[in-house]
């Protein structure tokens, strides 16, 4: 279809405008999508970082960040349920952090037993060669400027207790607007004034020969005063809480939806305008006897060329933009499938837009060819 290619490349400025329109849409959707995906991941990061199958929380807890204390007996009773082979604890609460320079800062303090999994940020890691004391405090690299420690280890205070910041980790930057500190469960309980045997979250590992849902059902019968959720259920609940019930989450969701719609409109308008620019030529083709398929094929090929070029340009623009954005928004995340989906989606959007615009091309009155 030489005509399709020639139409595109003949008027380079129009082609550039079309490609820029599509690439803007792709960029917008990928960026907004990355914000949403990153936010959703961050909302359930700690839950997903654990290897345990079931989470027990106080009744009505909506998200990991807003837990409530559970009594020690709940953990003991859960441990006795058939199928439960291991238990662990985690807690999270806000605390006052006094920096080495004397300034104070509210922090999110996360404590966890060391058996929660390799990915959970706790001081004792079996595989590490670094020497970490069980009561060490860790912080995420993205919070470095707020933690304000000149060198490690550094002596600080948390809720009036002396504490040692010993290591910097990566990948656990939060969206709460306050830095997160990570330590052992025992240490965190001490800082937060929680009884040493009490828990905020009780995590259970289910034996391989047992069904998680059966054990969950059993637990619910035995522990009617608490919520018993699988890891996926609690992660989903936490994500939904943050994205639906909080202003920030709703704004990100709305922005992502609007980004998608705006992208769709931009692509549609751009492709439609591109088709309408050539409407006289389509009328000529029809007058010459070109079939509907012939004309539609030209419009579709033009749209797909613009879609492919716009997608590539948009994705190329996303790479440096995301790199920069990550320095400001540590939790933003572009999963590998998002750009891939976006390429397919943009080609689909271009095809749909071309179908809409091809209607104009196909229904154009061939009689207009006589109007000079």
């Amino acid at each position, binding site marked *: 279809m030489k*005509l399709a290619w*020639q139409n595109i490349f003949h008027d380079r400025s129009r082609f550039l405008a079309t490609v820029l329109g599509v690439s803007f849409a792709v960029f917008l959707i990928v960026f907004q999508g990355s914000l949403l995906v990153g936010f959703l991941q961050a909302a359930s990061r700690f839950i997903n970082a654990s290897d345990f199958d079931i989470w027990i929380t106080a009744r009505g807890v909506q998200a990991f960040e807003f837990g409530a204390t559970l009594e020690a007996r709940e953990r003991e009773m859960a441990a006795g349920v058939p199928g439960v082979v291991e238990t662990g604890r985690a807690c999270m609460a806000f605390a006052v952090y006094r920096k080495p320079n004397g300034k104070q800062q509210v922090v999110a303090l996360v404590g966890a037993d060391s058996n929660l999994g390799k990915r959970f940020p706790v001081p004792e890691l079996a595989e590490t060669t670094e020497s970490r004391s069980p009561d060490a405090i860790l912080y995420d690299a993205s919070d470095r400027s707020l933690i304000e420690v000149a060198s490690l280890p550094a002596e600080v205070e948390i809720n009036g207790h002396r504490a040692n910041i010993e290591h910097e980790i990566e990948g656990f930057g939060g969206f709460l607007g306050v830095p997160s500190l990570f330590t052992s469960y025992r240490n965190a309980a001490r800082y937060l004034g929680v009884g040493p045997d009490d828990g905020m979250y009780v995590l259970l590992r289910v034996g391989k020969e047992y069904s998680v849902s059966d054990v969950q059902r059993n637990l619910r019968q035995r522990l009617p005063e608490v919520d018993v959720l699988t890891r996926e259920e609690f992660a989903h609940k936490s994500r939904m809480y943050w994205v639906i019930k909080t202003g920030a989450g709703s704004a990100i969701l709305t922005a992502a939806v609007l980004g998608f719609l705006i992208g769709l409109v931009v692509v549609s308008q751009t492709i439609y305008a591109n088709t309408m620019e050539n409407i006289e030529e389509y009328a*000529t083709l029809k007058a*010459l006897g070109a*079939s509907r398929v012939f004309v539609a094929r030209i419009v579709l090929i033009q749209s797909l060329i613009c879609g492919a070029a716009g997608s590539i340009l948009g994705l190329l623009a996303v790479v440096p933009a995301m790199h920069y954005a990550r320095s400001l928004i540590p939790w933003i995340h572009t999963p590998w499938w998002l750009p891939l989906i976006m390429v397919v989606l943009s080609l689909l959007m271009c095809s749909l837009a071309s179908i809409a615009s091809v209607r104009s091309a196909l229904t154009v009155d061939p009689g207009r*060819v*006589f109007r*000079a």
Partner: protein
Amino acid sequence: MPDRFLAVEEARISFGEGDARVRALRGVSATFERGTLSLVMGPSGSGKTTLLSLLGCLLSPDEGTVFVDGVAVNELSASEKTVLRRKKISFVFQAFRLLHSLSAIDNVALGLEIRDGRRADQIVMARELLLQFGLGDKLNREPSGLSPGEKQRVAIARALAGNPPILLADEPTASLDAEAGRSICQILRSQVDKNGRTVVVVSHDPRWKEFADRTITLSDGQIKPQAQGQHA
């Protein structure tokens, strides 16, 4: 039985509604014989282009019948009309209507592709047609690089690609100077004489009279009675 190779019978057509309604043709009947060049003249708004649109299957009459290659086109579907147009009819326009992004040879090749489908030799055939019209040195020029006369010759070459028997031309010399206009008149006349095509030319240009086998004059949507010695 009259030859209904290309004809209209009692064709009536109106545009618009209410007070804005314009009766473009009011019972026009005309037969265009095979292998002739017919000239349709008349003032602006007389219905010349509407008649050409009917003959080209681009419009359907409100009443009356249009025959192309003996077929009453009123009864055909839009896609059947498209096929008929593709096989039998070709157009030459006042504004040339060349595809601006294609070279002269590609414009002609596109005409071939539309009529005959994609063919390996379509560029060779397009080249031959353009050579016939003295455009051998302009094959790869885009329309913007051609003079008006050259554009119209490319448009005629495109119209002749695929060898359609009917050629409908709407003011083909209106945008051309005297010399280029005369050249176009000669080219279309030769298509009648050498190839037996049926050519209908709508024009204000009186130069066409010497090249036409007959002249039809339209006035206010009707064929004007012919002066003695002429026939419609």
